[in-house]
């Protein structure tokens, strides 16, 4: 559990971070909470030569409601968000990440930039159609959730860039649920489902979002289910959930075959939608 040799800096300004990353080149990595990167380094599956720690950067921690959306600093720890009822699926999913020790250190920005399809927050971001701010030497850009996650552990955050802010919409009017299926409470999801339901005045489903954790190389939207349910009554949930796994090709592992994952996706989608519709 000893990582290969690396250098470490903890700059106090974003400019210094960016210049350290530029100087470090391809093998420089940003360190946020460290709960994905450091284990990979200790297992010698990752070997960056330079770690640029964001912990001293001012203004990157905390969530604020502004102009109908939430702006969450990239260094906001899961513990700061877990269980917050105003944050809908963000509050629900962060409460289920690993264990409390991990939630005390892990950050929303680190989790999203890492792009692990078995992590919870990428799915939440995709479901709520959020976005992130990415800052590089050439300035900042806004990247939508759908464009952020490109492949397994691959995101739109380029080398030399830093994910600095996360934006999610105001969840007022939405009910939400995160169903995470694990063997142990602290495990990564075998399958996770985010469901969001906005009901019309007549109780029908005005809008709906469903997205999966660990059903592919990136978070996946269950568009067939969404389409089947949008504009319908909540009694259509079970039928719509039957279509949840359509078009998915999840990888199998020791704990779950692809068939089992697709089955879990259908069951959890139904349960998540029912909970979201009730909420």
């Amino acid at each position, binding site marked *: *559990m*000893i990582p*290969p*040799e690396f250098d470490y800096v903890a700059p106090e300004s974003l400019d210094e971070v960016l210049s350290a990353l530029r100087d470090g080149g391809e093998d420089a990595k940003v360190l946020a909470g460290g709960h994905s990167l450091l284990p990979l380094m200790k*297992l*010698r599956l990752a070997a960056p030569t330079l770690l640029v720690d964001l912990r001293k950067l001012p203004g990157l921690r905390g969530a604020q409601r502004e102009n109908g959306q939430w702006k969450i600093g990239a260094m906001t720890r899961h513990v700061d968000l877990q269980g917050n009822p105003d944050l809908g699926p963000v509050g629900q999913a962060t409460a289920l990440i690993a264990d409390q020790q991990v939630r005390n250190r892990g950050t929303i920005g680190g989790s999203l930039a890492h792009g692990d399809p078995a992590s919870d927050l990428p799915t939440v971001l995709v479901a709520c159609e959020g976005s992130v701010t990415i800052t590089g030497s050439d300035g900042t850009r806004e990247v939508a959730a759908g464009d952020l996650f490109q492949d397994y552990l691959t995101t739109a955050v380029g080398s030399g860039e830093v994910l600095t802010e996360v934006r999610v919409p105001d969840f007022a009017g939405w009910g939400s649920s995160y169903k995470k*299926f694990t*063997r*142990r*409470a*602290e*495990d*990564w999801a*075998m399958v996770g489902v985010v469901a969001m339901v906005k009901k019309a005045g007549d109780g029908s489903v005005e809008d709906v979002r469903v997205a999966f954790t660990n059903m592919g190389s990136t978070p996946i939207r269950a568009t067939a289910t969404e389409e089947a349910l949008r504009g319908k009554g909540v009694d259509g949930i079970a039928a719509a959930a039957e279509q949840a796994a359509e078009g998915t090709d999840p990888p199998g592992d*020791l*704990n*779950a*075959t692809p068939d*089992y994952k697709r*089955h*879990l996706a259908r*069951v959890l989608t139904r349960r998540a939608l029912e909970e979201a519709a009730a909420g």
Partner: protein
Amino acid sequence: MSATAETTTGGNGHVGRALRRKEDPRLITGRASYVDDINLTGQLWAAWVRSPEAHAKIVSIDTSAAKARDGVIAVYTHEDLDMEAALPMAWVPPGVDVNTPDHWVLAKGEVKHVGDPVAFVVGDDRYAVVDAAEDVLVDYDPLPVVTDPEAALEEGSALVHEQFGTNKICEWSLGGGDLEAGFAEADVVIERRIVNHRIAGGAIEPRGVLAEWRADKLTVWSSTQVPHFLRLFLSMLLEISEDRVRVIAPEVGGAFGSKLNIYAEEIGCAWASRKLGRPVKWIETRSEGMMVTHHGRDQIDKVRVGAKRDGTMTAFHTTIIADCGAYQMLLTPMIPPLSAFVMCGVYKTPAVQTDIIDVMTNKFPTDAIRGAGRPEATHLIEVMMDQLAAELGMDPLEVRRKNFIPPFTEPHETPIGVAYDSGNYAAALDKLLTHVDPAQVRQEAEGLREKGIYRGIGFCTYTEICGNAPSRIVGPGGFGLQGGGWESATVRVHATGAVTLYTGTSPHGQGHETGFAQIVADRLGIDPQQVDVIHGDTQTGPFGLDTYGSRTLAVGGEAAARAAKKVADKAKAIVAHQLEADPNDIELSDGKWIVRGSPEKGMALGDVAGAAYVPENLPEGMEPGLDEQSFYDPDNFVFPFGAHACVVDVDAETGKIDIVRYVAVDDCGPPINPLLIDGQVHGGITHALGQALFERIHYDESGQLVTGSFVDYALPTAAELPSYETDRTVTPSPVNSLGVKGVGEAGTIAGSATVTNAVIDALRPLGVTFIDMPLTPLRVWEAINKAKGGSQ
């Protein structure tokens, strides 16, 4: 006079009290010293180069880059270690040939499993040696791999060790009664193939060793449960006289059998320390631990049971194919035979036979893991009891009661020749049923079913064998273990009356510092806080046989009681002399030895110690001092028993199991400290539920270890487990004066069948009649699907 009266001195009644553990303050405030906390001046670090191949010829090893790295002092391969002998295996069963390959500290010519060490690096920088180990270039020529023990037995299988011409290690059998007649007499015969999968010990402190060769003496600190064995083998393998070898097991953070071994790293670090004249240290990483700390279980059990219509069992036959892995460690091939010793269970089945085939594969060796053979036996017996009940359409508890051995207080001889010491199985089950009502559970189940939740209840009634042991039974001329089974203790009363107990056992978390202190304190009329218990250091106390197999209290505790009694006897003689009374009239009362009936005059232990060490007025011919020793070799094992129940809810849609209740009634004789018993039972059950529902060491077909970390090897946490409910019955053992039986493994032995039976019970309405561990959600879901499809 009964054995119990013999060492009971009428002390202050500390035995039986739920005293809090004396060792806990230092443990929970971080003041304990584990191997990794100990550092010596001039200390070097070792790191191991391990095979990524499951089976391969070593074509070449290039150590030049590693040697050139800063901070590296030496890199050693097999040829450098001028050792005559390989790592030990201690089982030589009379009349049975055991194919035992040499197991070298560093692989010789070929590697046989993933993780097989081919070289080690020593240097003065803990980080540099790990980097340097990656610099060692090994060229492997892969050889055919076999990981399935049944395939390994087939003609033409790849061979793990070519020289034997077979992968079979040995065949070994134990049986009694007329099996053929038993099956002929049966109305019903059922057969099942039960897989008891491979698991790890999962101790939270990994292994570690620090070896210091200084002034022609070797001191080794190791996270081990067997310091005395380790000293013996260090002495033999390194050819150093035993008096010049000291082994210290400092604080050990759990072991569960996994540290009951002589490991390559222990010998390698000691060898390197002597070679380099500097201390050498190695601390295992968790990844290494999963790969090269011995595993347990890994049996395929083919079981046949014959019974009459009324449930009376007539014959029980088991064939065990045991996957022992690539080499044999200290007790590897001997663990499956331990299953055979308890194959009668708690039942009076007239004919019982166990046939064992030990097999080699390209995996790490198995050896003792908590329960060692008895969990496997109990699992298959108790799963079969429920299978039999279902076949007969009877209540599973009724079938058990029909076959229970009736209560006995003197040894009961089973047909296989094992004599149980005492037992009252029906009483344990009756007690259990005061806590859990099967009828009520079934009623609850009805109500839950419409929600897709299937509730089930499972039971296990068990006995097990522990208290190793009577040397004449386990030793070279008997079972074939190349050693004895006695235990030692020294009770040293200091001049002021403070007491140190030295035990030859080596506890590693169980709480014996408290329990043993209670035993000694009561016999000397003092407070347990006045008794310091020293263990795990071969230089401080007498030779001992360490801690494993739930032997520590039943053998080591009895030795402590006997040594304390010798002290008490001498004290009585001194008191009698000083008070001018007959020694037979001296008794211990309220912390003082008095003349019976005259409590006004008496001597406390401190007074007696003063008299013994300032010997102005001792009885004629008595030697000074108050310091006594006992070597105790019991005349039988002890056989704890009990009854467990588990209630589970299965989510039929996902296959996920929720443990609703777990109730355990265990009988380990009169409790020395009920709190320590509960601690052992809780931990034991957790190990069983861990194996049954979560944990599995898995190798793929190419021999790669798939479950190489705690991410994939799913040790359960508090979040997955219920709050256990425990109770006990008390049936003293006639074997020792304390009447005690071991309890460190009981929960593990009873638990896996209990929960497996509960899950099968829950799933019966869905058509599932049998399922193997581990009961993962995937496996449960697949079983439900298969049952829906109508095939079993």
